[in-house]
C-alpha cells in the first residue's frame, strides 16, 4: 500500500509544470580560488560557454548560440551516454570576465536542485594572478513540504559545493597556486 504514493510522487516530479515549483528557501553558495596565472589566461580557458572541458566531471559539451545571450549547452557527465545537464546563458561580459547561466533541465537524481542559476567570474589579484569565483543560487531538489533527506536543503548545498570544488580544484592544478 505504501508503494503507490511513491510511484505517484515520482511521476509528479517529472511533470513539466511541477519543474517550476520549488522549496521555501533559496540557497546561495560562493566558492573561490586564487591562482597564479593572469586573468586573461584563465578567461581564455573558462570564458567560453560552449567549452566546459576544464571541469573534470564534464565528458562532453554540445550547444548552440556561441556566447550570445540565450545560448544553450548540454553537458554530458562522466562518460558517453552519461547523465546530462541542459543550461542556458543569460549574461555574458567578456570585458568584466563574467558569465551567468541557469539550468533548464536536470534530473534531481543527478543534481538535487531546482531553479538553479550560476555565475562564473575572474578578477585580478594584487599579485597579478586571478581570483576565480563560482556562485550559485538554487532551491532544493524536492519542491514540496517535508523533503526526504537526499533532496533537502543540505543535500542541495552539498551537491553544488562538490561540483564547484571539483572545478576550482582542477583550475588551481592547471594555473598554479
Amino acid at each position, binding site marked *: 500500500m505504501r508503494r503507490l504514493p511513491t510511484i505517484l510522487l515520482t511521476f509528479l516530479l517529472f511533470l513539466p*509544470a511541477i519543474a*517550476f*515549483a520549488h522549496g*521555501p*528557501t*533559496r540557497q*546561495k553558495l560562493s566558492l573561490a580560488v586564487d591562482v597564479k596565472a593572469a586573468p586573461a589566461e584563465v578567461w581564455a580557458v573558462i570564458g567560453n560557454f560552449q567549452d566546459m572541458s576544464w571541469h573534470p566531471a564534464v565528458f562532453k559539451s554540445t550547444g548552440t548560440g556561441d556566447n550570445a545571450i540565450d545560448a544553450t549547452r548540454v553537458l554530458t557527465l562522466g562518460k558517453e551516454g552519461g547523465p546530462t545537464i541542459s543550461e542556458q546563458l*543569460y*549574461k555574458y561580459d567578456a570585458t568584466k570576465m563574467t558569465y*551567468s547561466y*541557469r539550468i533548464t533541465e536536470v534530473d534531481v537524481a543527478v543534481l538535487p536542485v531546482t531553479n538553479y*542559476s550560476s555565475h562564473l567570474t575572474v578578477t585580478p589579484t594584487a599579485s597579478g594572478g586571478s581570483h576565480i569565483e563560482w*556562485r550559485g*543560487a538554487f532551491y532544493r531538489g524536492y519542491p*514540496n*513540504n517535508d523533503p526526504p533527506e537526499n533532496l533537502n536543503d543540505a543535500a542541495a548545498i552539498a551537491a553544488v559545493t562538490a561540483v564547484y570544488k571539483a572545478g576550482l580544484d582542477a583550475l588551481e592544478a592547471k594555473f598554479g597556486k
Partner: protein
Amino acid sequence: MRWKPSSANRTVLFCLLAALLGPREGVADYAYVTNQSSSDLSVIDLERMKEIRRIPVPGMPAGVAVSQKLGAFFTVSPDSKTIRRFGLADANPQVERQLDGGPIGIAVDDRRRRIFVSDWYNARVWVLAADDLSLTATLNTGSAPAGLAISPDGRWLATADRDSHQMSIFDADTLALRHRITVGERPFGLAFAPDGRVFSADVGSNTVTAVDPESGRVLGRAKTGERPYGIAFATDRGFVTNQYGDSVTVFDARTYAEVGVIDVGGYPEGIDTTADGARIAVANWDTNTLSIIDAKSLEVVGEIATGDGPRAFGLFLTTDMPKE
C-alpha cells in the same frame, strides 16, 4: 526631537502640514529588511543610509509587513513556519505563532486588524488577528499563492496564485471570493498602484499584468526584464525588480510603455516606495545590499549593507521612528 505621529488625527494634520511645507523635515524613512540566510532583520535608516539595528528572526524569514497604524511589523519564516509580531518602536518580539504548510507572503489590513498569510503548499490564505495572531479563517486560492496585498482603500485583498497563473481577488471585509483572473505565467509578487489597480509580476512570461479588482478585467501588460519579482509605484510609474537581470524595469503605469532600466545589486527581490514617493528601496538577495533609487531621476543614490540574503518580500518601509 523628531516629531512622531501618535494618532490618526495628528497624522492627517501632519500630512496637511507636509503638503503645505513641501519637502518633509524631521521625518525619516526606515526599512525593515528580512535577511533569509542570516535569519535576522535589518532596520535601516534611509536618511543616514545605514543599518541602525539587527534583530534576530529565527527560521529564515522572507515575508515582511510593516504597519505604522498598528505600531508593529510582522515576519514570516518559511523554514520554521513561524509568524511573528514585533513592536515597531522597540523592535521587540511580542507574539509568535507556528503554522503548518508553507507560509510565505504576508499583508496587513490595519483597518480590520487582520493579517493575511499565503500558504505556498496548500492553495490557501490564513486570516489571523493582528493582535494575538490567532487564526480566524482560511481562504481558498489557486495553486501556490505567494504575494498578497490589500488595496489602498481597504476594499480588496489580492493574491498571486503562482502555479495557477492567476490572481484571486477577495472582498477584504466579507472575505468572499470576487474574481479569479488569468494573468501572465507564474505570478509571484503583486502590488496595488495608488489608484487602486493591482499588478502581478509574472516570473514565467517576463511581464507585469494590470488588473481592475472591481471588474476583474485585465487592463494592460508591461514587458519586464528576466524573472520579475516585486513591484512598487511612484509618480505614475511602476518599478519592477528583475531577479535574473540584476536590474529594475521602470514602466509608465498609464501606457505600460518602458521608461528605463536601472542596474541594481545581484538578485533584486523586495521593492517598496517611501511615504513621500520620492525614493524606491530594493533588497538585493545575492549582494546583501539595499539599493536606493531616486524615483524621478531614476538614479541609484545609495547602497546600504544588510544581513545575508535580504528578501524583504512585502511592504517593508515606514516613516515611524525606531529606537536605536
